[in-house]
């Protein structure tokens, strides 16, 4: 039986279904991300696990105990908030010690454990600072240490990086990953940033409109998206419009160019419109065997640091090609005619009729 079991959880707010029947099992030590746009229900689910909201229906079990109706202070679940939520009247050390003092630990145990945790988050030298004397990134490190101090059974993080600068975000997400791996603590992580979810998680739940659209390892989610929504929310994707020519030969036409795919939707017949979902980095300017070829013209060249992006138009279609950038080899200039190659392994869907 799973460590944390969430079963058919529902919650509505004034007529709107915030969480609409979510079921998920989390194993001990697993890092699970709840990924989705704002308002998709991921934070509401997290708050129900924390006990700040009660579900309208469904159950939550932790270590085989039904905690659905247990008040938050009795759940032994740690939480890190987007707004840090450090106690302004306590120092960094005082904040970290709070949960230990509540448990009436002896003061020598508290002192030792606080020092250890502040060291873990790299703030051993700032134990006596008050929250307003710390930067945003430092505050969030203290908040993480504070949540870990009482050795919670589950750690919840609610968009912990989204109030921080881009640069601090990168550093701190590496830290969170390192600390979670080191302590092997069961973790639920809410984010709207697919890159964070991909890099941090053992598994990802992709939320949309209160439901989970797909559950899987980051590679599964990225390489085999189950729905259009997942395909476009996780990673970038080009949507190329085509007309089915021969379902048997798996051939369609983009403009005048024949393109071969692996499979059409079952309902697609000759003459039907379909959409090819192709990731920018799966389109290349170098030929490879068995790949589709689509001639086009470079419209714009984008510099992305380690990578480069080309916006290419081909007839009525425009799409993005992304590649590793080699400073010693120049990129094609706007206006250059190029051939774009991509494999047959792309997702094909039918556009909604009407």
């Amino acid at each position, binding site marked *: 039986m799973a460590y944390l079991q969430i079963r058919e959880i529902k919650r509505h707010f004034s007529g709107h279904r915030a969480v609409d029947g979510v079921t998920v099992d989390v194993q001990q030590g697993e890092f699970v991300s709840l990924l989705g746009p704002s308002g998709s229900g991921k934070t509401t689910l997290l708050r129900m696990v924390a006990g700040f909201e009660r579900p309208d229906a469904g159950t939550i079990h932790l270590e085989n105990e039904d905690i659905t109706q247990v008040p938050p*202070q009795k759940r032994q679940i740690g939480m890190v908030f987007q707004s840090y*939520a450090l*106690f302004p009247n306590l120092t960094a050390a005082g904040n970290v010690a709070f949960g230990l003092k509540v448990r009436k630990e002896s003061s020598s145990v508290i002192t030792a454990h606080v020092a250890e945790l502040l060291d873990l988050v790299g703030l051993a030298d700032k134990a006596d600072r008050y929250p307003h004397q710390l930067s945003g990134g430092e505050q969030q490190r203290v908040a993480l240490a504070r949540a870990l*101090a*009482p050795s919670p059974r589950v750690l919840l993080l609610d968009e912990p990086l989204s109030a921080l600068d881009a640069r601090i975000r990168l550093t701190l997400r590496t830290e969170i990953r390192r600390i979670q791996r080191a302590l092997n603590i069961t973790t639920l992580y809410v984010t709207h940033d697919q890159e964070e979810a991909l890099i941090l998680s053992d598994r990802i739940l992709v939320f949309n409109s209160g439901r989970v659209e797909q559950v899987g390892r980051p590679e599964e989610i990225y390489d085999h998206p189950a729905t259009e929504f997942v395909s476009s929310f996780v990673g970038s994707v080009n949507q190329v419009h085509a007309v089915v020519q021969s379902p048997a030969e798996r051939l369609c036409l983009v403009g005048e160019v024949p393109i071969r795919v692996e499979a059409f939707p079952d309902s697609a017949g000759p003459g039907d419109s379909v959409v090819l979902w192709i990731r920018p980095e799966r389109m290349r300017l170098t030929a490879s065997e068995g790949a589709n070829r689509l001639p086009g013209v470079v419209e714009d060249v984008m510099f992305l640091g380690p990578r480069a992006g080309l916006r290419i138009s081909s007839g009525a279609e425009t799409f993005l090609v992304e590649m590793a950038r080699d400073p010693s080899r120049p990129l094609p200039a706007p206006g250059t005619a190029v051939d774009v190659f991509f494999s047959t392994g792309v997702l094909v869907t039918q556009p909604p009729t009407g």
Partner: protein
Amino acid sequence: MRPARGSSWLVVLLGAAYFILPLVATLQFSLQTGTRPLFSAYSSILTASGFWASLGLSLFMALAAVAIGLLLIIPAAYWAYLRAPKVRTWVEFLSILPFVVPPIVLVFGMVGLYGNGFGPLSSPMVLILAAYGVISMPYLFRSIDNGLRSVDLRTLTQAALSLGAGWPVILLRIVLPNLRTAILGGAFLVFALIMGEYAISSMLGFNTFGVYMLLTGQTRAHAAAALALISFALVWVFVGFMHAVNRGNITFGPGAR
């Protein structure tokens, strides 16, 4: 972004004049003693027995009202804030009622309760403290509600809960320390209000500082002006004291910082 400098200072000067001119005029009036010594109005006040008695009574009532109000309002405001917006509308409505129900209605209502005989609750001292409690509520509620909001005590409460803290610990270790400025501000307003209050105490037959001031004014105008300035000075002494507490220059017990 910035209006012209000149107009800025004009506004400040006008505002200051509007408030400070009455004070200056009162000072001047209190010193217009004709043939008697310059500060005779002040000395006659400070030696009058009624002055000290009424001052003591008002001080006691003001402190009692602040204490009662804080005991009732801090938990109520905190609870209403956590339950927002469901309950908050109702509590806010209740907290505005004392503005809307004039003090006179309040006194009539209380006299009505008294007339119907409510035993120990009908003592005049209980009545006047209850009345002061009611009129001080909106000030305390607003002040504390702003305080709760400005430090986002909802999230702090959730953080404390997730760390295993129960409600008493949260109230004592998180809510109160972070509301100190708000509590002091609200308490100060109520204190000043009750030190100058006249209508309720006169109707219930208490010889408070406000009643004493008005009676003096009706008989000895110069002394009354002096009295008004003395009361003004008293309030400022209190303000200074509270500022010192808030800045941490004065601390109470080992827990305060």
